[in-house]
């Protein structure tokens, strides 16, 4: 039995918001794969919870009329990987979340919870940064849409005010159309391990498939929160696919990241991963776009 003071099972988003407003100390629980662990370990013992687990309107993926793709925050990792819209238009996201934990965790863990815990190692986060995900946040009085980069305020802290719930993750058409992407999770084991470093690259090539038209580079665990490397990206836009281009990307990315030493890995090792993994991810992304890599 969990040490929970009280738990309310919300029946709709509005119902959840009402209960969160009435009890400002209550926490949202979705799949529970972070919250229940923290209660078990004592960090959140005695907390009050509002469960959004049964709000089915927050589950699933849909294509909007304008071509944007809307992901319900309660969508589990496994349902995201299996979803036909994700498979067809944003396969990189389904592939990234297929690397979370093990099968049981992928069945219970939600993508909304994965970014709302504010953790830098979250496997969906770097890919959502690369995709310039927009987040719909619904509160007692209104709903607002913000870029994912503004959601993260610091380690473990996201921009949710009292009574607010993350109600949708939106990937706009211009951020997936003609882009291909690749995510690499570097970890010590192939399953049930947290990323030592995560790296996602999405790119778009010119018609001849020999030049980078656009590129997005994002990391997890390269800093206190997931991050992009805008200078590295800019430095290779318009460049022909070449060793020089890959080296430029890696070298400039190194100037933008701030990894730390933890028990998992040293700062120096993480820096090496930052330089190496962006090249490997970009190579795979280029291949998926039909580009050719010499040598």
């Amino acid at each position, binding site marked *: 039995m969990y040490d*929970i003071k009280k738990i309310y099972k919300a029946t709709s988003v509005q119902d959840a918001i009402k209960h969160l407003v009435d009890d400002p100390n209550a926490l949202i629980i979705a799949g*529970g794969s972070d919250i229940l662990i923290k209660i078990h370990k004592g960090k959140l013992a005695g907390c009050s919870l509002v469960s959004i*687990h049964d709000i089915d309107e927050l589950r699933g993926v849909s294509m909007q009329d304008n071509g944007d793709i809307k992901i319900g925050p309660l969508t589990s990792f496994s349902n995201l990987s299996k979803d036909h819209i994700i498979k067809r238009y944003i396969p990189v996201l389904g592939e990234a979340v297929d690397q979370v934990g093990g099968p049981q965790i992928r069945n219970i863990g939600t993508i909304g919870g994965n970014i709302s815990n504010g953790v830098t190692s979250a496997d969906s986060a770097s890919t959502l940064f690369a995709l310039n995900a927009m987040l719909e946040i619904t509160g007692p009085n209104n709903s607002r849409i913000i870029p994912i980069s503004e959601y993260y305020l610091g380690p473990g802290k996201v921009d949710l005010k009292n009574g607010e719930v993350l109600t949708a993750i939106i990937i706009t058409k211009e951020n997936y159309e003609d882009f291909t992407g690749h995510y690499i999770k570097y970890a010590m084991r192939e399953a049930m391990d947290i990323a030592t470093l995560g790296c996602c690259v999405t790119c778009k090539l010119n018609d001849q498939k020999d030049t980078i038209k656009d590129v997005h580079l994002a990391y997890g665990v390269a800093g206190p929160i997931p991050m992009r490397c805008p200078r590295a990206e800019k430095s290779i836009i318009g460049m022909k696919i070449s060793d020089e281009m890959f080296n430029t990307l890696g070298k400039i990315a190194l100037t933008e990241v701030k990894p730390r030493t933890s028990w998992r890995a040293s700062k120096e090792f993480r820096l090496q991963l930052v330089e190496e993994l962006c090249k490997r991810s970009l190579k795979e992304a280029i291949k998926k776009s039909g580009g050719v890599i010499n040598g």
Partner: protein
Amino acid sequence: MAKVVLSCTVNSEPQQIIIDDRDSLADVLRDKLHLTSVKKGCEVGECGACTVLINDEAFDSCIYLAIWAEGKEIRTVEGLMDADGEISDIQQAFIDEAAVQCGFCTCGFIMSSMPILESDEEYTRDEIRKQIAGNFCRCTGYENIANAVEKVKEDRMNNKK
């Protein structure tokens, strides 16, 4: 905290159980329904010993609140027994392949392998290993477990042809 009534199906039998709304599903299955095939190894989603099927998908019942099971279909190893009380092909295969040593992990592995065994799709050995990667075994070294699952998968696919 409150007492609530949970209505769900467990191993094909409809149940109405009075539970505490702070119970995990593992608590309810073990303590209220005495389904002790559900083991508690870590209670934090790391070991898979408590794996059960909820609507045919594998979940760690230790990190699943019992109140979420309302209206759902839950299956444990006890439900694999046939009408004559005989064990199922996958249980027999674990015995034959020496995939059981201390046995603490066994029921969890068997439930994790059910979605593979009940699927119409083919699975490679690597795909089987991926589907049981959320379960820990401290004894066998995993090879015999993968052998048992692979063997039953092959048999079941052949029987379908």
